[in-house]
């Protein structure tokens, strides 16, 4: 495999086909794992590679796999999270459209490592057309005996089912996703027990993001050292950075983990258009607290972003130009979370809708100065007090918008 062959998004448009993937050295890593490695060695290599989950939380993938109990006779499941609902994020779409076989190969390796024989790919309803291509890729792989019974002539079997959602951001949360695969409302479950122990159909379950799994073939194929050399020792590999908003070249950029945010925005995405200056940048999907223009030298990796008071999240970067009033950003954010709260717990249900009402009032010119403190108080009341992480996902970005752009918002209120 050459450097260019292991990109998550190949340059060529027809590269999604099985034959094209084989020409790039595809399925060699899965063959190697299944026919010549012990399952625990697969997990050990992924742990060594420092691959952190690309779905948002950045949990180390190999460590997650190692939590699955290896005793007992209950079936085990793999769920691939292709719900991609985090606003500002469009990376999993690109993998599904342009490199689906790399995801499938990653799934084979993960399933072999953990001892799983059945996998579900949960694709958001809005990607139903993309899911058809995924079905085609699955059929291609099955036809060659790369999926199904006796993969690569071994006694390892893997069945893959594509499960298409029906519109609900919360189904991206891992336990809500399990509920949705079981044919229920996507309402998050209380943890513990964690899905690795009690997950889908009450069985041990691994849930991983599309991009996480698409990184697995190169880790097994080229080795953990190669992988960390392309990123950071505790945060290996490249990342798909999506850039949208006020930039000249919106798009997806595959760059080493730890590339400075400013470099991505200004060099790769071309910076803001003529006559526009940057007012704020959302670094990792709408849930990630905004950064001010003086905070953009931060390296884009999980730990650095956390230290900067935000998060890497899905690495969906949204650039806000100086012509956009912050109240507009606040309105979109507040509306989104009020709409997407599953309603199961009070701080999130009431908090998001109260914040939304208050923000709407400010937007309509009926705001009071005390409204800004009210929003901050409501956000603080949600933080850490909800059943699933969505309470924080809503509270943190709203809190950051109000506290970092207080002067502008105060002007909006008193006008």
């Amino acid at each position, binding site marked *: 495999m050459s450097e260019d062959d292991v990109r998550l998004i190949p340059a060529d448009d027809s590269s999604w086909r099985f034959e094209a993937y084989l020409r790039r050295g595809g399925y060699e890593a899965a063959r190697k794992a299944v026919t010549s490695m012990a399952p625990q060695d697969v997990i050990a290599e992924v742990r060594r590679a420092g691959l952190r989950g690309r779905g948002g939380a950045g949990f180390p993938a190999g460590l997650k796999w190692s939590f699955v109990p290896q005793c007992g006779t209950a079936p085990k499941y793999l769920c691939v999270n292709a719900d*991609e609902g985090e606003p500002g*994020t469009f990376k999993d779409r690109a993998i599904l459209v342009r490199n689906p076989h790399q995801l499938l190969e990653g799934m084979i390796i993960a399933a072999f490592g953990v001892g799983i024989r059945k996998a579900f790919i949960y694709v958001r309803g809005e990607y139903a057309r993309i899911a058809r291509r995924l079905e085609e890729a699955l059929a291609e792989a099955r036809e060659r005996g790369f999926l199904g019974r006796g993969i690569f002539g071994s006694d390892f079997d893997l069945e893959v089912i594509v499960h298409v959602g029906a519109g609900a951001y919360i189904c991206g949360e891992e336990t809500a996703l399990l509920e949705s695969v079981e044919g229920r409302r996507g309402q998050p479950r209380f943890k513990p027990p964690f899905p690795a122990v009690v997950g889908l159909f009450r069985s041990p379950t691994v849930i991983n993001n599309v991009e996480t799994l698409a990184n697995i073939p190169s880790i097994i194929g080229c080795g953990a050292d190669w992988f960390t050399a392309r990123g950071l020792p505790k945060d290996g590999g490249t990342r798909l950075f999506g850039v949208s908003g006020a930039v000249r070249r919106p798009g997806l950029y595959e760059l080493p983990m730890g590339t400075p945010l400013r470099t991505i925005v200004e060099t790769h995405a071309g910076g803001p258009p003529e006559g526009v200056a940057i007012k704020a940048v959302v670094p990792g999907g709408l849930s990630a607290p905004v950064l001010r223009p003086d905070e953009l030298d931060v390296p884009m990796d999980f730990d650095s972003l956390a230290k900067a008071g935000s998060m890497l999240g899905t690495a969906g970067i949204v650039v806000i130009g100086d012509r956009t009033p912050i109240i507009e950003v606040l309105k979109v*954010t507040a509306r989104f979370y009020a709409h997407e709260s599953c309603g199961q717990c009070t701080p999130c249900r009431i908090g998001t809708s109260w914040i939304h009402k208050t923000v709407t009032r400010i937007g309509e010119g009926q705001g009071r100065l005390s409204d800004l403190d009210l929003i901050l108080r409501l956000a603080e009341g949600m933080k850490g007090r909800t059943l699933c992480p969505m309470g924080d996902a809503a509270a943190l970005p709203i809190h950051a918008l109000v506290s970092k752009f207080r002067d502008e918002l105060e002007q909006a209120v008193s006008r």
Partner: protein
Amino acid sequence: MSYAPSAATLKKIEGMIAPYPEKSAALLPVLRAIQEESGCVLPEAEAWVAAKLGIRPIRVREVLSFYTMFRRKPAGKTTIQVCRNLSCTLAGAEDIIGFLREKLHIGPDGTTPDGRITLETVECLGNCDHAPCLQIDGVDHGPVTRDGAAALLEELRAHE
């Protein structure tokens, strides 16, 4: 009135149920298949699904009412869904939404009186690098300008 899917849809539904360890897990795909054929899922169809999957009718209703893409009432023949989340708003989504409403003479989230087009606003479509963007019956378009939106409407009319 009782409900029954077409023979083709029934076959599809049975194929969908088979791979799941528990029949009831096929609820979302089955509802999707029915909606694809009938445009929505009416109470008669809910009862049919409950019987087919061996679950109580309330479970079908719970799911139908939770997910935004399911319809319990018919909509227009064509559905236009315009994204209004952050990247699209920054790129002028509200202007496109206003333009489409004016062109189609309908209010927010409405259907034209002739039942041809339903216009809806949605949250992020995962296509933010093509903002402002929209989907017409699940097909992505973007970036969309006013002229581009007018052309898309023309095309829809031409295909009537």
